[in-house]
C-alpha cells in the first residue's frame, strides 16, 4: 500500500469518529488531499451523517475534489510525439493484418 493511500485511509477512518469535530477535521483533510478515492466516504457522510452542517461540508469537499479532478484531466496534455508515432504503427499493423485476412478468404 502506498504512503498516500495509507494517509487517505487514516483520514477516512476519522470520518467514522463519533466526535463531530474529528469528522469535520477528516473532511477538511480529505478536501486538501484531493484524491477522488475519498468521494465514497464523503458521499456517505453527505447522505447519512446526523449533523446537517457536516453533510453540507462533505458535499462542498466532494464537489471541490470532483471539479479539481475534472480540471486536472482537462489540463493533461495530449499524447507525446513518440506515443502518437507508436499508435500510428499499431494502427498500421492492425490495418495490414485485417487486409491480409480479407485477401486470404
Amino acid at each position, binding site marked *: 500500500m502506498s504512503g498516500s493511500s495509507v494517509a487517505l485511509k487514516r483520514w477516512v477512518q476519522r470520518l467514522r469518529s463519533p466526535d463531530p469535530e474529528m469528522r469535520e477535521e477528516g473532511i477538511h483533510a480529505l*478536501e*486538501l488531499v*484531493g484524491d*477522488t*478515492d475519498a*468521494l*465514497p466516504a*464523503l*458521499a*456517505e457522510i*453527505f*447522505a447519512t451523517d446526523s449533523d*446537517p*452542517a457536516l*453533510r*453540507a*461540508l*462533505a*458535499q*462542498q469537499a*466532494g*464537489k*471541490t475534489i*470532483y*471539479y*479539481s*479532478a*475534472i*480540471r486536472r*484531466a482537462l489540463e493533461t496534455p495530449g499524447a507525446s510525439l513518440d506515443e502518437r508515432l507508436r499508435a500510428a504503427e499499431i494502427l498500421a499493423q492492425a490495418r495490414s493484418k485485417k487486409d491480409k485476412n480479407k485477401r486470404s478468404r
Partner: protein
Amino acid sequence: MDIFNLTNRLRDPDPRVRVETLRILAMIEETRALPAVHWIYKHDPEPGVRAVADWAGDLLWQAHKRGHSTADAVNEMFERSVSSARQEQFLETLEVDLLQMKNIAAQRFVAEQDYRRKMSEALQVPAPEETDSFATDEALPQLPARVDPSTAPERRSTDSWQRAVDDEWPDWIEG
C-alpha cells in the same frame, strides 16, 4: 476512482457499489446523470437501491431546475478573476505553512485548495467590514449554489422528479 465513468458503476452487479455511486452523483450534483439515475429508479432489482435512486434523483432534479451544470461550476470555481489586492489578502491568511512542504507541486495544490475554500466562504458570507472591498469585485460571477445545511440532504421538492425526467429525456429513457 475513475470519475469519468461514474454512471458505468451504476451497472455494477454489487448493489452496494450502485448505492455508493448514487450517493456520489447526488453529492457532486452531476445532473448529466439524471437519466441514468432515473433508469435505476425504474429498473433496479433491489428495492433499497431504487429508494436511494429516488432520493438522488430528487436532489439532482433540484440542481437541474436551478440551472446547475458541472461545466459551469468548474469554470466558476477556477476561471474567475480577482483583484491582486484581494488575492494578497487571502494569501496572508493561508493556514498551511508552505515553507514546511518540500514538494513544489504539493505546495501549489495545497495553497490552491486553501485559497479557493477561503475565497468561496468569503464570497458567500461577506463580513460586514469587508463590504466595501467586495464592491470592487463586482464582476465576480456567482459561485455554484450550496445546499442549505439546515435542509440537506432531505428531499425538498414536492413535484415529481420522475415525471419531469420522463418528459425531458423521453428518448434516453425509452432507449
